[in-house]
């Protein structure tokens, strides 16, 4: 076989591999489809919304009708328009928090796992300190101390995730670091960055990704809980969690104002978890 053929016929193109994992898993396929639809709604929802999210269009708490499919909320906004608009903040803040958390926790885990010794011990004890606080309490203390804002929300959710991420990444890295192929690279004098890129990251990716799926779902819930408790996004913004807080009082009058965002939030977290689970299980086979 010639060299060019070889590169052309390299196994494991990501999309094919991804599709193969869902073969014969009905629950996974349904979840994947739902998640894709949901993400479409989240991203493109505002473009198709019939009304503006903060536009007062009718009498508060009026039921579903031809012009307002999901009725109106406590101020008379169109619920459908708000729901179409309110997913972006949920997903965006969770993603932002995850990215921050992986930036900090992932690097800490890689360094601790690869270096070991005193560096490892110091970093991990630091993580244990963060881990000692209950997440919600930590976020509330943070909000009452510094004041509630979206930046604090993102930072808080990230902070809560940092120790867990650091531990998972450290454990996976430490295991890979003892493998002979890493030692062979060290003996050849390869630099830390190439070793991380070629030998460590590709081989811990599956473990870390499996953890990331569940973590993302939990982060969405955590961010939503914070918003529900009033830390983070301020009420007029159309966020699913904020909508649930706002419309609590009208549950019996106009249940859709609360149920619509609640159902979407539940579907989002469940589908993310199921898809993550399918991807992980395949790795374990």
């Amino acid at each position: 076989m010639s060299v060019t053929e070889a590169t052309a016929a390299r196994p494991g193109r990501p999309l094919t591999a991804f599709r193969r994992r869902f073969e014969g898993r009905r629950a996974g396929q349904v979840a994947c489809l739902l998640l894709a639809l949901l993400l479409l709604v989240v991203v493109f929802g505002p473009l198709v919304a019939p009304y503006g999210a903060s536009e007062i269009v009718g009498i508060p708490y009026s039921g579903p009708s031809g012009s307002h499919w999901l009725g109106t909320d406590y101020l008379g906004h169109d619920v459908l328009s708000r729901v179409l608009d309110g997913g972006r903040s949920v997903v965006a803040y969770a993603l932002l928090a995850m990215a921050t958390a992986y930036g900090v926790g992932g690097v800490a885990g890689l360094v601790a796992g690869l270096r070991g010794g005193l560096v490892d011990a110091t970093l991990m004890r630091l993580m244990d300190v963060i881990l000692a606080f209950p997440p919600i309490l930590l976020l509330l203390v943070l909000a009452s101390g510094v004041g509630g804002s979206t930046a604090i929300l993102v930072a808080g959710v990230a902070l809560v995730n940092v120790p867990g991420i650091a531990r998972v990444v450290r454990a996976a890295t430490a295991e890979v670091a003892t493998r002979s192929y890493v030692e062979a690279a060290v003996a050849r004098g390869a630099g830390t960055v190439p070793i991380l890129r070629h030998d460590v990251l590709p081989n811990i990716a599956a473990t870390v990704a499996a953890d990331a799926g569940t973590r993302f779902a939990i982060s969405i819930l955590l961010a939503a809980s914070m918003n529900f408790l009033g830390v983070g996004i301020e009420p007029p913004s159309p966020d699913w969690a904020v909508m649930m807080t706002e419309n609590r009082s009208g549950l019996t009058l106009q249940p859709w104002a609360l149920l619509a965002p609640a159902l979407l939030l539940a579907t989002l977290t469940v589908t993310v978890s199921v898809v993550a689970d399918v991807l992980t299980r395949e790795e374990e086979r």
Partner: protein
Amino acid sequence: MSADAAALEIAGLVVRAPGGAAIVEQVELTVRGAEIVALVGESGSGKTTCGLAALGFARDGARIDGGSVRVAGRELLGLGERELRGVRGRHVSYVPQNPGSALNPAMRVGDHLRELLRAHGRAGDDAVVQAALERVHLPGERAFRRRWPHQLSGGQQQRLAIALALACEPAVAVMDEPTTGLDVVTQARILDEVRRLRDASGLGVLYISHDLAAVASIADRIAVMYAGRVVEQGPAAELLARPCHPYTRGLLASLPDHREPRRLRGIGGAVAALDARPAGCAFAPRCPLASDACRAQAPPLTSPAADRAVRCFHAAQTPPPAFEPLPQRAAADGAALLAVRDLRVSFGGGDVVAADDVGFALARGECLALVGESGSGKTTIARCVAGLQRPDGGEIALAGEPLAGFARGRTREQRRRLQIVFQNPYQSLNPRETAIEAVARPLRELGRDHAAGGRAASLRAAEQMLERVQLPRRLAHSRPAALSGGELQRVAIARALVVEPELLLCDEITSALDVSVQAAVLELLGGLRDELGLTLLFITHDLGVVAAIADRVLVLQRGSVVETGPVGQVVRAPAQPYTQELVAAAPSLSR
């Protein structure tokens, strides 16, 4: 039961995997009282499956699908789980491979025996427990009975496992690789113990092992398994002297022997996977005598001589084993390539001394073997030379230039000239890289001429190197998961040799391989050594391997050099007591 009645009789046994493929097929095996039958085979041959079937047991998912297993005349197959429980341990017992994980860490030594005895309705008082321990030469006193399994040495744990197997005086004991993982001296003692128990109590033993040399000293009869079938069996001495099956002959030719050093000949190819076994004789694809008949149908069991049985159409044509002498090598020219002086390494703040003032020199073109048991410091020394471990003191010099402690402190040229191959082939290669990528990478990092040619040039060079280590062409673009242990090790050797090093460190590179594959890898290494003028530092615990490949040997014990000299001299006439003990304990066919 009289001594001449069969203690264990297995006939027509079939065990199937969950998918329906037969793990073992048509197994016929008889163990008489006071007889040790060795069941020998390489990994995946089905020997453990057979051994477990002797207790009416099949591993998770597998099932016994036919045949008969009789223990002291009583049929086990078809018995209910409750009845089987009464038979196991009482009439037929099992000694597992790894006693460390077979013993309950939360149970004292005495309680292990007491529980077993009581489960079979026997008195479990102290006197009985003491007697059971003393039978296998363990101390029977109270203090020992109150110890926990983790407080015993590996050899003691194995003796306890044997004591447990013998406590209820069964007719037959199945011992599954009971000495694998023990050092040779302990192994020799356990083997003596098994032999003594056979003579003293009329016990029948089915002794499962991958090591033909180890069982040769104790077995009355040997059964050789290949790909799920017993391909040959007979009295030990006869079978070893005149093998009828080409596979047995191949095994003998691959077996390193320190008493009779000779050229090793591996068996080409690898055992077929369970779901890809060929239709006819499973050995046909690797057999030099294979004919169309072999590929068409599995040969039936025939008896070429009294008490011999073989499954081969060409049993009569199988030539007797012919041992070739080792090739003569020109003496090394004397210029030292590697010099190690006063090397000191300790761990845990000086508590464990892994190397204590170790010094040696390695001449260009020479092969020096570092020999020792586990914990002797041989791997630590190799890691220091490779730049993976910084020594506490001493000096390592390559061609006169002192080397920095860590690889990163050495020059690129120094790193290129010295390469290492590791012990565990399954962890040696990055699972995400194909064979050819793995071999091409060092060229980009260390290569001299190829760096200019870019990726295409390095891939071409890697391809040539893979050909040199005789990796089948179609596997060059496979990832490690698709390769066998021997193939992985060939790729690891190619990865080391592709940058044209002068010194190759081999850290137990064959210890995880089957003996026929080991021989093939050693054969390859010997050839490459001549071809490329390599200097080898070869770390191993196996004196047979030393005799087959090394020029000089350095014996290590607890971090210190005990003895050093030419292989012939050290192995034939060891001067130090420790070396003498090692040499005496090492398994060999010629004893």
